């Protein structure tokens, strides 16, 4: 492998997640966040070399929704640009690659989308192959329940376990002013919520929400002047799996396991337990347990802290959930996490996912120190 550049997260702005913003379009929600992120870095729009965004035409309910975002991203004069039809965390992954290729030193990464406008069960059914899985009407909660059932049977997990995972996240979310759900809830109360698709209850599902986010990346040499505590990307990797639910071992996050291994190797860490905190994009409590298994994490142990932000279980804005995990890692490691700060955190891992049943997974390891010399 050739020499890699040190690239850091130097800014992050997010509007608090809401169920629905009735006053602004997706693009209007984004504009203030791009401004805030740049102001935080003390730079002007023209100081940024590259822009990349992640969003979905089906979430937007129209083709080419991202074209309208060019205006609020300040795309004048014309900018070097890309848009991925993915969670914006994958846009951050690409911005990092772009910097490795040497074509730019600074980038903004934007995520947006109004989940409240569409019917997500129907929308996300369209992610499935139209002949088999899509044709029997599977929605994301049902596919997640299939996965949860396999995992729980294999690992002897119960309803109580799911309630406890959720309650831990909800307690953390109560300390996160940007979370959608900001009230701690007991496992008993969660276990009393109605079944949506058993073994998943309403209480164990990530609540859909909407927001807009902008993350700023900068390479060594630029990063230091843009942020008092740049958070350096030390390793990253992403993997997709086949979609076919009947051909994958749903109890095992195979892609996550591989991506984690590769990202840790790049970062020079032996295990995920060397991180002080981990932010996961689990859309339900069972997914979180599967991810922990794939990453080699033990939630019973004090370190790493899992989801100090409350995770997706306290707010799940589609196409942004993953980038928010990376933003939380930045906040934690740069001293911006307020009362939910993990003390003395030095290293952290962010996870993003896409598709049904954790089909595609991205893992990014960050730290307070530069990785490469």
């Amino acid at each position: 492998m050739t020499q890699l550049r040190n690239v850091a997260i130097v800014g992050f702005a997010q509007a608090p997640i809401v169920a629905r913003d009735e006053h602004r379009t997706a693009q209007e929600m984004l504009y203030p966040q791009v401004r805030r992120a740049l102001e935080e870095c003390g730079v002007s729009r023209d100081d940024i070399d590259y822009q990349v965004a992640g969003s979905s035409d089906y979430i937007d309910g129209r083709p080419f929704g991202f074209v309208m975002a060019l205006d609020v991203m300040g795309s004048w004069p014309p900018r070097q640009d890309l848009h991925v039809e993915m969670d914006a965390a994958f846009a951050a992954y690409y911005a990092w690659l772009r910097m490795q290729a040497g074509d730019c030193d600074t980038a903004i990464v934007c995520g947006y989308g109004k989940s409240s406008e569409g019917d997500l069960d129907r929308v996300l059914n369209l992610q499935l192959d139209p002949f088999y899985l899509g044709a029997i009407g599977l929605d994301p909660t049902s596919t997640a329940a299939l996965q949860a059932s396999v995992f729980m049977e294999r690992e002897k997990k119960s309803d109580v376990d799911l309630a406890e995972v959720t309650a831990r996240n909800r307690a953390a979310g109560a300390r996160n002013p940007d979370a959608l759900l900001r009230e701690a809830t007991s496992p008993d109360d969660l276990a009393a919520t109605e079944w949506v698709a058993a073994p998943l209850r309403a209480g164990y599902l990530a609540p859909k929400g909407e927001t807009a986010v902008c993350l700023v990346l900068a390479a060594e040499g630029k990063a230091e002047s843009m942020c008092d505590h740049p958070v350096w990307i030390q390793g990253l990797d992403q993997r997709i799996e086949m979609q076919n639910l009947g051909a994958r071992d749903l109890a095992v996050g195979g892609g996550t396991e591989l991506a984690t291994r590769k990202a840790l190797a790049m970062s020079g860490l032996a295990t995920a337990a060397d991180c002080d905190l981990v932010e996961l994009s689990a859309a339900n409590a069972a997914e979180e347990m599967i991810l922990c298994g794939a990453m080699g994490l033990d939630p019973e142990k004090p370190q790493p802290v899992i989801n100090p932000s409350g995770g997706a279980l306290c707010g799940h804005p589609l196409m942004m959930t993953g980038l928010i995990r990376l933003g939380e890692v930045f906040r934690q490691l740069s001293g911006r996490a307020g009362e939910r700060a993990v003390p003395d955190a030095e290293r952290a891992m962010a996870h993003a996912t896409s598709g049904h049943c954790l089909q595609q997974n991205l893992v990014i390891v960050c730290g307070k120190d530069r990785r490469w010399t």
Partner: protein
Amino acid sequence: MSSAPRTEPMTAEMVSEFVYKHSTGNDIGRFLAGMKDQKKIWCQRVRGLGVAVPPVGYSEADGSPAGEWVEVQPRGTVTAIARVFRPIAELHPSDLPFAYILVRLEGADTALAHIVVDDLDRLFIGSRVEAVWKPDEERIGSIRDIAHFRVIG
């Protein structure tokens, strides 16, 4: 930006409706023809997965072309269950509570996703189920030519 204009929200509901025609190609097309004309479930042997159901013409594990056709039995063992309590109209295949399942058919190495609508209290991981076919005149060449699976033990 505190001076941004505010007003009462304006919203509008709209339904986007369209019928897409997805070409099946030779492999999926022949599988569906087997369901429609023969009430048989055909699979393909592929590298990395064994006898893969439903067939797609290639190995999803490594992209290599599929091998021979293999007939599998319309019955097997349940490997996963999602019990749906409130079906979603115009999306789910049943108006009453039902279950999605993954079923490992006899002779196959991967599992098929389908539904069970009856005897849900007898449905568990490990239960035996078998396909209930739609009548001849209702089979059109669709995965839903199997109306549902029923619990047989």
